[in-house]
């Protein structure tokens, strides 16, 4: 009885191995095309084994930036602004290779920043697909409606707000009678051809920047991906 069981299993291994690898290879390679139809057709297999092994495929020519802007509730004057992602990168670099704490916070915050950017692009594509000449105010209204009805987007946004509060507390910045907003943008990396002309402040290490208009290095012409409305600290 046992003998025939082992024999039966032995006969199954090679065909199962071949079927699994034909499926896995087809699924893996299908991620390369922009339309991963195979993955959509087999969602369970996709979830269990399918991974988009696109390691550094999208070579990115920008750095993400997340600015935290504070203003006075009564005068509506901007009081502080600070950039949070670059600071995380600097801390990660300074503590390498023993930088696991910095690595974790950097990865978590960037995950939600990328998620918000990704959702923004998705909604923009959806809205402008059938209505290319849409007015800016109408576009903003529709974007807001999409974002408010997406629990994942709301969770991502709230996570970033929570992180901003932690960052402010760590820096001992007074938040009485103040409200805040976040601005996410993409800061272009200098083109390869222009690499020999670094900015004046460049000393080989990363350097901090703010959304201060006096800071010549911060160009608001860099692509703004997301700008939240002002939030109260009590919210």
């Amino acid at each position: 009885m046992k003998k025939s069981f082992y024999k039966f299993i032995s006969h199954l291994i090679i065909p199962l191995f071949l079927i699994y690898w034909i499926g896995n290879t087809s699924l893996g390679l299908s991620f390369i095309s922009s339309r991963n139809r195979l993955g959509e057709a087999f969602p369970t297999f996709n979830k269990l084994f399918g991974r988009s092994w696109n390691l550094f495929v999208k070579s990115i020519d920008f750095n993400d930036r997340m600015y935290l802007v504070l203003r006075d509730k009564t005068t509506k004057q901007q009081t502080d602004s600070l950039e949070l992602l670059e600071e995380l990168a600097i801390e990660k670099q300074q503590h390498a290779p023993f930088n696991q704490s910095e690595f974790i916070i950097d990865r978590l915050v960037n995950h939600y920043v990328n998620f918000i950017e990704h959702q923004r692009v998705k909604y923009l594509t959806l809205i402008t697909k059938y209505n290319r000449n849409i007015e800016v105010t109408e576009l903003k209204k529709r974007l807001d409606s999409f974002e408010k009805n997406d629990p994942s987007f709301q969770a991502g946004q709230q996570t970033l707000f929570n992180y901003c509060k932690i960052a402010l507390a760590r820096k001992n910045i007074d938040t009485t009678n103040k409200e805040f907003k976040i601005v996410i943008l993409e800061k272009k990396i200098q083109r390869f051809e222009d690499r020999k002309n670094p900015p004046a402040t460049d000393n080989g290490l990363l350097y901090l920047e703010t959304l201060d208009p006096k800071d010549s290095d911060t160009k608001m012409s860099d692509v703004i991906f997301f700008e939240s409305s002002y939030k109260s600290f009590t919210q």
Partner: protein
Amino acid sequence: MIRSSIIACEDWFAKENRKSAYLAFLRVAMSLWLLKELLIDWSNFEVLYSNHSFIVREDNTLMALLPGALSFVRDHYMTFIYLYIVVIILNILGVGRWITATVLFVMLDTLQKLNTSIVNGGDNMARLVLLYLIFASSYDYFVLYKTKIKNPERKRMLNMMSNAAAYSLMLQLCLSYLCSGLGKLTNELWKNGTALYYTMSMDRFTGTPWNKHLAANALFVKIGTYYTLVFEIAFSFLVWINKFRKPFIIAGLLLHLFIYVFMMLYGFEEVFILLLGLFLTNDEALRIARRCKRIIFRTSKNQAVNYAANS
């Protein structure tokens, strides 16, 4: 024709456990890797796994099937972590064999589901390695006790399963390189040889102050970009040819060490480096192990002699 090929393939698979030495090493090394990851994450467990983190959870995977399951684990995350450590230690010692390996896989999967935002390519690969290791006979070495299989049919079946698991791990590595390589071919920056400049200029991956100087060197950028591209595409095909096997293992090692140092992707690269060793034959793996043992033995013997002479 197909039937005879399958029978020939079956016989080749069933003859012996072709990667027994390295599979045993991989089981222990992966378990130690999991322990290391836990230890370095220890001070951040509350952020990562508790319900009191700044992260707003939006579970949409397991929650649909088992409402409250992940939240329950989060409420008792330290108990879960302690149990996880016990299972890792049992897996290192080879106690419980495939049952322990299965429990370990389920626990790692749960831990990754507790916080999907932290999971990267290395973690995904580690998860797959544990999945394949359930089917592998990795208990010929580094175990608390050995068991002798008397039934030849059972031995044949276990050899086949083990070899299928080992070759699946190797194919998985090839697939990840091939997909990454082919994907890069669709990107203009990789095609024109400047991708390394942009990758090394990203703040998040600036591992050393030398990154910017290296990225400014056009020759370095071009060679590095095309080296990565050629390696990732050619590896899957040429590593199976004996003549190219060792050069490709060394080339892979160099690539991962470079990323390790200059881009600060530590855990990720360690998993990929460990997998490269599967392309060694059993004899080669055993020879390396014997050499390491001799070096360690000689060093400790010398230390003992020195200590005795000094005292």
